């Protein structure tokens, strides 16, 4: 089964009814400073940033909300939306509780559901993820599941009601790029009505371009920008790569062939009469 390219090319970029122009979702963690983060957000042209929640320690209960103020300022200045995550959760119950907290604090129904199944690779737990997704969709959340590229899991997530799937490219923060591009292409082929975003593992802008070239709708990344020597410039590089990848996809990329085809029109051989 192959996807309808024209259908994908014409489809608006819309996440749960939110029209967006940028196909680049940016994570906000691990930047050298809040000021650099703010610059990177501006340079990326993103309209959606990921945020998280962390439990506080008794000694560290902060009376101020400096981070919240900074990020809110950014939202107001750049029209950026929040995409809260459930990072750090290892059970469906934890993810559900955190999703409720995120909805209260960030005032959005959007939630990136992340339930980790393996502490070494941070690979999502497909069973707990599906359980959490079922419950959260029932409770009115707009769920973006962080998942693997497993076709059956993705099928179950779509059947549960997810309008978006976010398979990993490779483990979070690893910078290994796309480890299984053929499986991602398979997802594109099979789910032409579902938004597909690669989340995690990207290293360089060419990885992002590749994601868009195979027909994915967007990318979500953090470390590749945050850990760059110059995060704002890297954010801009990814922005351009995402645009280039999408432009290439919409233009219709040529098919590969096993044989050579001369690009210069010739008639026979130049010196052989």
């Amino acid at each position, binding site marked *: 089964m192959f996807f309808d390219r024209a259908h994908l090319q014409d489809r608006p970029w819309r996440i749960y009814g939110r029209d967006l122009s940028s196909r680049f979702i940016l994570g906000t*963690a691990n930047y050298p400073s809040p000021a650099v983060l703010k610059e990177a957000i501006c340079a990326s042209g993103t309209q959606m940033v990921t945020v*998280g929640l*962390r*439990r506080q320690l*008794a000694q560290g*209960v902060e009376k101020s909300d400096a981070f*919240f103020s900074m990020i809110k300022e950014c939202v107001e200045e750049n029209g950026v939306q929040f995409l809260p995550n459930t990072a750090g959760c290892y059970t469906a119950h934890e993810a559900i*509780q955190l999703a409720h907290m995120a909805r209260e604090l960030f005032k959005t129904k959007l939630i990136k559901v992340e339930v980790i199944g393996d502490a070494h690779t941070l690979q999502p737990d497909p069973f707990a993820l599906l359980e959490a997704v079922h419950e959260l969709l029932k409770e009115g959340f707009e769920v973006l599941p962080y998942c693997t590229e497993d076709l059956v899991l993705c099928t179950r997530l779509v059947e549960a009601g997810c309008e978006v799937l976010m398979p990993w490219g490779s483990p979070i923060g690893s910078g290994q790029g796309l480890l299984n591009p053929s499986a991602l292409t398979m997802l594109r082929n099979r789910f032409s009505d579902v938004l597909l975003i690669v989340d995690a593992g990207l290293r360089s802008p060419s990885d992002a371009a590749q994601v868009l070239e195979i027909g994915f709708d967007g990318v979500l990344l953090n470390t590749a920008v945050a850990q760059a020597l110059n995060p704002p410039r890297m954010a801009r590089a990814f922005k351009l790569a995402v645009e280039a990848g999408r432009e290439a996809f919409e233009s219709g990329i040529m098919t590969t062939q096993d044989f050579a085809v001369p690009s210069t029109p010739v008639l026979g051989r130049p010196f052989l009469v």
Partner: protein
Amino acid sequence: MTTQIKSASSCIEVSFNAELKIIETMTLLEWLDQIGVMGDAIATAINGQFIPKHKRGEIMLKHGDQIITFKPIVGG
């Protein structure tokens, strides 16, 4: 001069962000007010269950409760 001593029975032991506290019986909202936490900037859970902001004034803390507060942070 009369010294008022709280009876032991009016006090309970709770865990607040993993630290044991002996407090008077009160609601979650009263506890947060007492320690000066900005209620709008945090989310709360008791015994692993989310407590919405509008319910904090109704939830009476009980002996052994585990109260956890969460704050927004950066995330990927």
